């Protein structure tokens, strides 16, 4: 089983940003993403998903390290100051590295 390591980037943020963040991912070189609807709490208070404005999404991107860095840098500059958002990175092993 030949596996290669890639970065798994997880972004949890306001549902309102979905369109905008997805365009960024595309432009910065991610080949795909997975989204699930979420709720949560953080520094900007409780976001309990009872309606659109308090809903979160959790976006997952598997990509090469440079792409991950580019995304994190972009996101930090454009969204961190004003939006409920957390981002974290980890290593994952993937089977078809050329896909990512």
């Amino acid at each position, binding site marked *: 089983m030949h596996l290669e390591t890639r970065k798994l980037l997880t972004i949890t943020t*306001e549902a*309102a*940003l979905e369109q*905008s963040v997805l365009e960024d991912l595309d432009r910065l070189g991610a080949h795909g993403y997975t989204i699930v609807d979420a709720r949560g709490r953080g520094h900007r*208070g409780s976001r*309990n*998903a*009872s*309606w*659109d*404005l*308090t*809903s979160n999404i959790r976006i997952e991107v598997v990509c090469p390290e440079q792409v991950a860095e580019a995304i994190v840098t972009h996101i930090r500059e454009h*969204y961190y*100051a*004003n*939006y409920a958002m957390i981002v974290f990175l980890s290593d994952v092993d993937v089977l078809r590295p050329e896909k990512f």
Partner: protein
Amino acid sequence: MTSSIDPIVLFFLLGLIAGLLRSELRLPQAIYEFLTVLLLLAIGLKGGIELAKQPFGELLMPLLAVIIMGTMLPLVAYPILSLVGRFKRADAASIAAHYGSVSVGTYAVAIAYLGAQQIDYEAYMPLFVVVLEVPAILVGIVMARGVSRDTDWGKLAHEVFLGKGVVLLMGGLFIGWIAGPEGVEPIAPMFFDLFKGVLALFLLEMGLIAASQIGGLRRYGLFIVGFGILFPLFAATIGTVLGWMLGLSTGGTILLATLAASASYIAVPAAMRLTVPEANPTLSISASLGVTFPFNILVGIPLYHQFVNLIQNLGG
């Protein structure tokens, strides 16, 4: 005027109380969205079949007047918020935009109120809802950041004109207009017979949501409560006078006053979040949903009815 309280308002109170007592009651988000879709389509359809019945030549003047009102209201709100409320620029602009725009839920309660009192109103009122949604957003953005290069106006126009609210209201209006009263009859059980039931459930959920915004109030203090009640009273007065000047019927004037007094909680927050992100959404939403929506539903609408009676007695 019958005095008994409308049961749909009781649903709002039930939601509010359940929310404040931290009951586990909640409607799934999918249901909330569905109820919103039904309300928007029903309001549009109702307007559309009325338009089909009558010529609507004299529409331009009222529309223009109403757009001007929607542009002026946030311009009045801004200095109050900025100077008296001491909010930062972005926050003052954003709140002002919310109050310049309208709440479809409040409008729905107002037409239910008129229906219960058997007061007629102009068929084209849903058009007012649509045209009032937009200008305050633009004014708000310009107030927050000037006519900035950064603003992607194309994207914004898309966001504003193709949002759920405008599409469903306009869509319903067109369908009602093309199909006419008989054409719409087979779908009447869904959109008209159930209207008040749908509204009742919607208000139950709005009560729960409003309760969850009260926390925001505690943090941001008394000014918001005052503003959230006094500004609507002022705006309703403007709406009443304008309706009277335009020669609207009693019902139409009540609706215009209510629209003026209502504050957006769907289209504007979404647009502001993307274009003026440094504005704190908790401020505007807790004002709009935590104070003004309940106030209008519980006290405002009958009160604006009195305003209209007053001006018509004075003026007539």
